[in-house]
């Protein structure tokens, strides 16, 4: 079973704004924006989710096939890691 992925618990605040998510990373004083698709994954990561659950969320919410959703989830996770927004 794959690991449960979560957002970093400290110094990270976010809000939904017109379907997107605006997040403030207090550690780097940087604002981030996630598009509508990204915001679905963000809310799942806030609760904690495995990769397969993230993919399922996308497939359930959007008109997208599983292989493409899996690829896009990996890309977003990589971007979140790069910005230091995921809990290690």
């Amino acid at each position: 079973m794959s690991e449960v992925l979560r957002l970093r618990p400290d110094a990270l605040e976010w809000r939904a704004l017109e379907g997107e998510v605006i997040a403030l990373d207090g550690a780097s004083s940087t604002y981030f924006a996630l598009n509508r698709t990204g915001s679905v994954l963000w809310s799942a990561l806030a609760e904690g989710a495995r990769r397969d659950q993230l993919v399922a969320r996308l497939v359930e919410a959007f008109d997208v096939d599983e292989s493409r959703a899996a690829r896009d989830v990996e890309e977003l996770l990589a971007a979140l890691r790069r910005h230091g927004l995921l809990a290690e």
Partner: protein
Amino acid sequence: VPGAGGTSAPGGAGVPARSHAASVASSELVSTRRDSPRYGGESAPGGHGGISRACVIFTIARAYCLASAAVVSAKGATPPSVWHETQCALRMVATDCQSPATWCVARVDGVVAGPAANRKAAPIATTSAIAAGTGTRPRGIARSYRRPRISIRAVKLAEPALRATAQTLAVDLATAEVFAALADAGIEAMLLRGPVVARRFYGDAPRDYVDVDVLVPPAARARTRAVLQRLGYRPLASDDEVAGHRPLHAREWVRADGVSVDLHRTVSGARAPDERVWSELAARAERASIAGTVCAVPRAAASALVVALHAAHNGPRGAKPLADLERALAVADDVTWREAAALAERIDATAALAAGLQLVAGGAELVGRLELPEAQPIETRLRSAGAPPLALGIEWLAHTRGVRAKAALVASVVVPRPGALRTWRALARRGRWGLAFAYVSQPFWLARHAVPSLRALRRARREVA
């Protein structure tokens, strides 16, 4: 309908079946508005619908003028080809998707419906639903897919909603930082408003805030200042700069990143000693986690009282405090308000509570049910009546004893210290140039407000006599 030859597509009751389906789905989304705040001029929750007169009176007048102009110009009716296309693009909720270049596509149970502009027209349900983390759509609706993306976002001044959200996020993080630092220093503190009001009275609806309202016991005030200084905050005005002036219920501390902390010694409208205000509010305080830090917050009745006192402090022009109070009235029951009234009596804030409640619809009835007295101190009367700022200063001057003290007070208002000027006038906070302009314009500012302030003071004195 594009491509339909200028005529409506056939369907039951003259409406295409899939248009009807899309319309129903849209209505379902919008129906949750009964639980949502008003974004524009819509009727209040529980109302009969429609738009408030104040919001449409100008647009109706404009439409009337345009219609009259059209008649006078005698150009005749708008050609159907123009009218139909325009209505299609701007008004209709569900329309066949004939041109992918024109319409943003959303699939509704296999039906293509809705231009982007139309989906944007009903953001209320979706926004609150996302905030609640409950999803944004009824089951069965699959939205158009775009690759999930995260990007660094520059917050531009031209985006007020984004700016407000960004500031709220910053305030949340600052709140966590301040309360963690106070706890480390062994200082008891209470978060009075901001996220407390948002969570207690707004539920899932968004409510932005701009500063951190911290109440500390009098004995911990000096140590709290030291903690704030260590975190990079500086007082807007030092004690010396406002010496002799009417004491404020809170002093503002600001940081270079724009975050500010209102350090409260008491709550506005409370005439009891600060120590008693602290002990009454801190009694049965609750805990809330703000950005991962646990903060003491007032219990429900105390929160309701704080909101009402804040409304009284800002008067009829304080749109946000009034909106908070309206929400509190809608959410809190009479038992809570009775407890708030009892608390107000213990901190000698009954008059301000009554004054605040009377500013909003339904408040006067609650004042009657709570049997709150009508008598008001002059300061409460001035504030709740929205008197010009100088009125309170003139009242304070009248009560200042001794000719020398009065003269010193007048001099310090005409040529104030920088901190005092920043406290009174927003212009003075806009850097050196703002401060310079505020100094230059101070005599004119005083002259402009003097007569209305004197009138307001005279009226208030008559009313409280």
